[in-house]
């Protein structure tokens, strides 16, 4: 796609997003807010998966630790948003510094170890009930407020999330186009070659892991103010694997992909669960179908069709 067309498309999408609250009811607005939040989480997973080639299954941990930290500070200690939100991101990022040790391994080992790490966080959230509230979690999280500026409705919160999202995607775009972003793709393409060119590949992956954890933590903060409560489900393995699926369904290594994937998965879940009890089975089927028939995701599919159309057009 030529650059001008891409910018135009981005502006059209942005305009639609800005105008959405005028046409959508509360249900749809909530669903789209959720899609943004989980899209951001999927984007953080995709920094590792699509660019560096690492498949992390513990990103619900950063998401949840950040959400819990913010919620506990805000609800129990009446800490203002201006401190509680950064503290949440900081807590999730610090956990990323620890879990980042997983980059000592690759491939299956990395996958299995991140799964195990993820369970630690779930286990603590679940069992340390005196602090985390156990299965009930932390409830009654207020809307965020900055001094006298307060968010007072889901629509206002929607705009806040949208603004953060736009800033994040711009930042993400700069990051993946930077020399550092290029080194990640280099490691994905050939790590042995990278080492022989002078790269300490573990260190690059570690930094990427921490950056990715920070982004997931940001999503966690946005989540807790949207959801108004957090419980161990936020830290659970199904969240980690579903956001990875979102990135893949949408298309890895792209920026819009994770958001498209998030929209598809959340939309599907809402739709199926409204009339079919075995909705988890349907999600399971989506996993299988994606792996077997659409490994490049929706964006990959569109690109393929686009290329075909362009070829047909030039003929």
């Amino acid at each position, binding site marked *: 796609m030529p650059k001008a067309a891409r910018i135009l498309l981005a502006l059209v999408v942005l305009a639609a997003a800005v105008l959405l609250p005028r046409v959508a009811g509360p249900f749809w607005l909530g669903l789209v807010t959720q899609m943004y939040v989980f899209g951001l989480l999927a984007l953080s997973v995709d920094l590792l998966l699509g660019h560096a080639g690492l498949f992390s299954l513990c990103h619900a941990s950063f998401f949840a630790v950040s959400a819990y930290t913010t919620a506990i500070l805000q609800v129990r200690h009446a800490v203002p948003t201006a401190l509680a939100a950064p503290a949440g991101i900081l807590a999730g990022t610090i956990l990323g510094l620890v879990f980042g040790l997983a980059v000592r391994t690759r491939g299956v080992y990395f996958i299995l170890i991140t799964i195990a790490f993820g369970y630690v966080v779930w286990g603590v959230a679940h069992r340390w009930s005196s602090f985390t509230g156990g299965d009930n979690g932390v409830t009654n999280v207020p809307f965020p407020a900055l001094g006298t500026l307060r968010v007072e409705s889901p629509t206002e919160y929607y705009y806040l999330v949208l603004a953060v999202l736009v800033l994040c995607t711009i930042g993400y775009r700069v990051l993946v186009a930077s020399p550092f*972003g290029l*080194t990640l793709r280099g490691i994905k393409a050939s790590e042995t*070659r990278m080492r022989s*060119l*002078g*790269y300490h590949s573990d260190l690059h992956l570690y930094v990427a892991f921490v950056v990715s954890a920070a982004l997931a933590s940001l999503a966690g903060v946005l989540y807790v103010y949207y959801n108004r409560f957090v419980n161990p489900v936020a830290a659970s393995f199904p969240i980690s694997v579903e956001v990875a699926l979102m990135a893949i369904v949408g298309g890895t290594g792209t920026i819009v992909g994770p958001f498209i994937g998030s929209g598809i998965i959340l939309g599907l879940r809402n739709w199926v669960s409204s009339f079919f009890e075995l909705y988890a089975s349907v999600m399971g089927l989506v996993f299988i179908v994606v792996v077997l028939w659409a490994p490049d995701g929706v964006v990959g599919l569109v690109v393929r069709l686009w290329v075909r159309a362009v070829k047909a057009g030039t003929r």
Partner: protein
Amino acid sequence: MALSAIEVGDLTKDFGGLRAVDRVSLRVAAGERRVLIGPNGAGKTTLFHCITGTLRTSAGRVSLFGRDVTHLPEHRRTALGMGRTFQTSNVFMDLSLLENLVLAIIGTDRRKWVMHRSVGTFEAVRAKAREGLELVALAHRANDAAKFLSYGERRQLELALALNSDPRVLFLDEPCAGLSPSERHSISRMIGELPRDITVLMIEHDMDVALRLADRVTVLHRGRAILEGTPTEVQTNPEVREVYFGHV
């Protein structure tokens, strides 16, 4: 005596019970062109891997311009001036040729950590990358992904990657393997034209290429360095004729 570019002492590499490299010692002078020859399975590539740090040695020492690098990881050795090519082309298939070269250029400096500016804004790096591609006659394909290159072009890119990491000592693992005679000729000409401030160690099966480029030749056989000498000395040595030329 002048400082050796590379000095290897009693280097040994075992794989399980198999000894691939057996107490090999080498001294390569700065600026020298050294060619390693030997039949298949003689341990040439393994020796290269051990010197450049791709594999850990089982025993022995490696030093680079007098500095002991035996226990340094590969990327540190590259930073100190080692550069290499791989026997089977090891280029970044999904990246464009330009990006391939950019990675080679920034590998040993701090720009690889920059996160807030796009690669496109580094004019000096891009210019150097283009130059690097011109040198191996691939500039016209700068924006193609490496996976679309022909086998021969990949070998050229492979060489360009090694050259652009600014090596003081260059290790070339069969740079001409699998190439047509004309491609072979152009690669060996490029190697021949390298400035003398780069020391070159090269594994080569093609005796014509090897003997034309080499100042000195080391013969490996069953993991051991059995002989070292000028190309003429090696060619006329009866033992070499038996173990090497006898097999070809």
